[in-house]
């Protein structure tokens, strides 16, 4: 963390929806003043984004993009516990035109398409009309950790804070679909929010799930996040929660559920968010000719949170370390620690299991044998026996990175 002179993004108040036409922009001289930045130590371009506290219901966040907002959770937050505080839960929007003003009396959730009966549910209907369920689940952008891609790739330059964990409260999507009555022949369910593209011709942000997934016991329409209503920027008042799957499916400000009897051809489902259909979705830079498939589930990951890269530790005396892990689309089976750059591994002690899709804390004790540089690594194995890979995952869009994390320390 350091103070630097950087061109400050001057934030102004949102005037109205659909503002930001070119006519609405003004050329003003930019005052130079010191702003707090976070140095992510990444080669190949800027890696010192500024810290912001300017967003409503949000605390200290890393500003990846002002509008539509990309706000990253500062990594030190993950050392404080497995549930990310709502005011530091990361934020990511595709289109800038979403309302800052949401009236809970007039808000409606529609269910339509290949159903027996269309529904228009008020928030009271949604909160009171169905059994409630709760689930802890990590909300992770498919492009989390993209800044570490080598060679670098375009897109949101998340470090490791394009993820957050919350205890979600809501109602089962299945129960809502059953109320409408899904007709025979339904194959997908498509979700849309109240956000709209700025350019009318641009593809509205929509995402679909296969019908069987949509009707499992876990996909949820959430109205609660860690016991409170959702922050606006995390999708107030309703958000789809798809436990174990990437956040692109977790449609915010959910307003429309459409049951389809034909494959969804919209851009976001049929074309966007693609990874190579290869083991670990990885290819060599410049490689061509591979098939592309949609991003779907999360992969296992683990992080050291208590020790940061470059820290000093005493040589020859016991030290303790802790961190977080998640299994992806299933639970954490084990987390192993290496203090010799991956040559040997020791098991760590797992903390309480607060839900298989959530973060799980781990801790370990170790002793660095001699003075000098040491390389710590941490590796999660999930309950499907899938292990984080040691090789560097790379694909053209920078999705699904889950290579074993490395932390360099100095023993003194």
């Amino acid at each position, binding site marked *: 963390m350091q103070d630097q002179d950087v061109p400050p993004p001057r934030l102004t108040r949102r005037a109205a929806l659909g503002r930001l036409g070119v006519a609405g922009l003004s050329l003003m001289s930019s005052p130079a003043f010191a702003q707090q930045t976070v140095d992510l130590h990444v080669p190949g371009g800027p890696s010192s984004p500024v810290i912001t506290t300017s967003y409503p219901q949000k605390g200290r966040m890393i500003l990846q993009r*002002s509008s539509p907002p990309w706000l990253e959770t500062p990594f030190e937050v993950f050392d404080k516990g497995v549930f990310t505080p709502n005011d530091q839960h990361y934020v990511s929007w595709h289109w800038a035109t979403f309302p800052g003003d949401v009236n809970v009396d007039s808000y409606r959730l529609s269910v339509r398409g290949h159903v027996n009966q269309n529904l228009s549910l008020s928030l009271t209907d949604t909160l009171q009309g169905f059994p409630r369920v709760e689930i802890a689940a990590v909300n992770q952008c498919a492009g989390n950790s993209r800044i570490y891609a080598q060679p*670098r790739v375009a897109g949101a330059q998340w470090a490791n804070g394009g993820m957050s964990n919350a205890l979600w409260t809501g109602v089962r999507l299945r129960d809502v679909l059953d109320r409408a009555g899904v007709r025979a022949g339904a194959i997908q369910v498509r979700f849309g929010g109240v956000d709209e593209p700025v350019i009318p011709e641009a593809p509205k942000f929509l995402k679909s799930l296969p019908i069987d997934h949509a009707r499992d016991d876990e996909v949820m329409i959430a109205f609660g996040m860690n*016991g409170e209503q959702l922050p606006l920027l995390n999708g*107030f008042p309703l958000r789809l929660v798809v436990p174990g799957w990437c956040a692109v499916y977790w449609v915010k400000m959910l307003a429309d559920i459409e049951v389809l009897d034909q494959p969804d051809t919209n851009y976001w489902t049929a074309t966007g968010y693609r990874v190579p259909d290869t083991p670990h979705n990885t290819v060599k830079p410049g490689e061509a000719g591979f098939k592309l498939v949609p991003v779907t589930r999360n992969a296992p990951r683990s992080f050291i949170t208590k020790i940061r890269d470059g820290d000093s530790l005493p040589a020859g005396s016991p030290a303790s370390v802790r961190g977080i892990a998640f299994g992806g689309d299933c639970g954490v089976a084990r987390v192993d620690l290496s203090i010799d750059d991956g040559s040997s591994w020791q098991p760590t002690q797992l903390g309480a299991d607060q839900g298989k899709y959530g973060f799980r804390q781990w801790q370990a004790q170790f002793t660095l044998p001699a003075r000098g540089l040491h390389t710590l690594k941490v590796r999660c194995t999930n309950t499907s026996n899938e292990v984080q890979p040691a090789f560097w995952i790379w694909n053209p869009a920078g999705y699904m990175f889950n290579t074993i994390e490395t932390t360099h320390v100095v023993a003194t």
Partner: protein
Amino acid sequence: MLRAILPMIAALGLALSLYPVEAASITALKSLKLDVPISDAMFPPGPGSDAMNNNCLACHSADHVLNQPSLSREAWLEVVNKMITAYRAPVSPEDAKAIVDYLARTKGTS
């Protein structure tokens, strides 16, 4: 201390309600009326900056671009083409060329 107690609580099957609070407490939602900041920052002036300001800022703020890594001209061309074909940005061919030139000049790899 706390960490030692947590597994015991889980083993006893008791609800973990230290944090978050009990979710049943949500009985109704409250309307929100909030100001979401936007940025009016423009691109650093130079050849092509008018094309950048006139085409790119309609959908996203300048820091989106300024935070991107250094990329090859081919990679920038691909990004600009994606904005036009996938996201339907109405960019004229002349402006598209000026934008790619600006990006390759200010955020290029060579």
